[in-house]
């Protein structure tokens, strides 16, 4: 098995499972459309909570999609075949995370402006929103791989995974949402982006190693 074959296969499987991939997006859309109904349709008020609501929505939607990462491969034995290939496990993890981001994080980023519109996000917020999602969603996928790797063998790991990785998600949420707010206020959000960028660089190095170790533990029976 080679990495390019794995990449092709995973993209093909994602394409065949389109319905499953729409779930996180639908969730994202629902969160954004229910807030005006439940809280207040006043554009000024919505504009204030929009950065936070969109980012919380994106974070929870990603959390929902993490089961796609390793679960089905674990159940049908493909994961064993991957781990038994001479490829380094951390590269396999990196390929799977890439695919996950392409089918989960990227679509979330692309429809985010629509949600901004629905929540009357002020004009200055769109650029930092897109930029923070572009930098932040890969972090969510990378960190999620650790949690997904650790819980893949558990029958009832449903609640455990969020507990494990939410603390790691918190810095992303804080900096990303406040970057959008800063943009709305008309100030420079370079510092926030620099933080997100460095967090991304760090997780890119550490998360695949941790997730690979987690997978080895989960599959060693």
């Amino acid at each position, binding site marked *: 098995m080679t990495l390019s074959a794995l990449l092709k*296969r995973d993209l093909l*499987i994602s394409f065949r499972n389109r319905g499953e991939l729409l779930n996180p997006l639908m969730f994202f859309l629902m969160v954004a459309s229910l807030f005006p109904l439940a809280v207040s349709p006043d554009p000024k008020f919505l504009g204030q909570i929009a950065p936070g609501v969109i980012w919380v929505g994106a974070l929870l939607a990603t959390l929902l999609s993490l089961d796609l990462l390793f679960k089905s491969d674990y*159940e*049908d*034995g*493909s994961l*064993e*075949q991957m781990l*038994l290939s001479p490829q380094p496990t951390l590269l396999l993890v990196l390929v799977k995370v890439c695919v996950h981001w392409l089918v989960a994080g990227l679509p979330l980023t692309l429809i985010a402006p629509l949600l901004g519109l629905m929540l009357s996000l002020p004009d200055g917020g769109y650029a930092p929103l897109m930029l923070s999602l572009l930098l932040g969603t890969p972090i969510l996928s990378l960190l999620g791989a650790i949690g997904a790797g650790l819980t893949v063998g558990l029958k009832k790991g449903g609640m455990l995974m969020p507990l494990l990785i939410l603390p790691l998600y918190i810095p992303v949420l804080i900096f990303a949402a406040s970057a959008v707010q800063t943009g709305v206020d008309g100030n420079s959000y370079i510092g926030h982006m620099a933080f997100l960028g460095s967090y991304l660089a760090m997780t890119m190095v550490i998360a695949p190693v941790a997730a690979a170790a987690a997978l080895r533990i989960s599959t060693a029976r």
Partner: protein
Amino acid sequence: MSSNPSQTSAVSTDNGEVWLSGHDLFCERDDRVLFSGLNFELSPTNLVRIVGPNGAGKSTLMRILVGMSAGYEGDVRWKGEDLHRARYDFHSNLLYLGHQVGVKGNLTPEENLNWLVPEASRDEIFDALEMVKLRGYEDVLTQGLSAGQQRRVALARLFIEKKPVWILDEPFTAIDKYGVAELEQILVDKAASGGLVIVTTHHELAVDHKTIELGGQ
């Protein structure tokens, strides 16, 4: 089931070279000793059958042999070197089929083989599918096939993989009796051509083979 240490029949080597060897292996699950003091040396051209009653630890031993188990004591060596240290070389030479064979339901048999054996050409894959009688099913999603056919998708790998070590856990499951006879012949041919084949099966092999016995009775 008794917790006696298992009896092992010594598996001798035909020639000097030893590929896979176990040294003083001990394994217990849930406070039950599956085997202890298990020693064996396996060489190219060996066809080895691991035998034992249900729950004797056959699959566990196989997972230890492929390096996917941590819960054991003793050493497994690949060409004299610790298995985990020689992982790259060992896994480059290994074909393992477990209980779950790694066939994806929403891919066609051809697509499954494409990623499992990327070095195989389209023609080789079609020939292999012909051999396992799945020709004509190339474009059907594997989840629509019967259990036996799904297993045959994985078994098609036996025709195209060039890897010399085969470790197969219950390869005959869900295969009809004609298929079993053919499969047996493939295993014999593989061993004869210088490969090492390790299988677990409840089916009696009609051909000459060595055994590792597990489970004290």
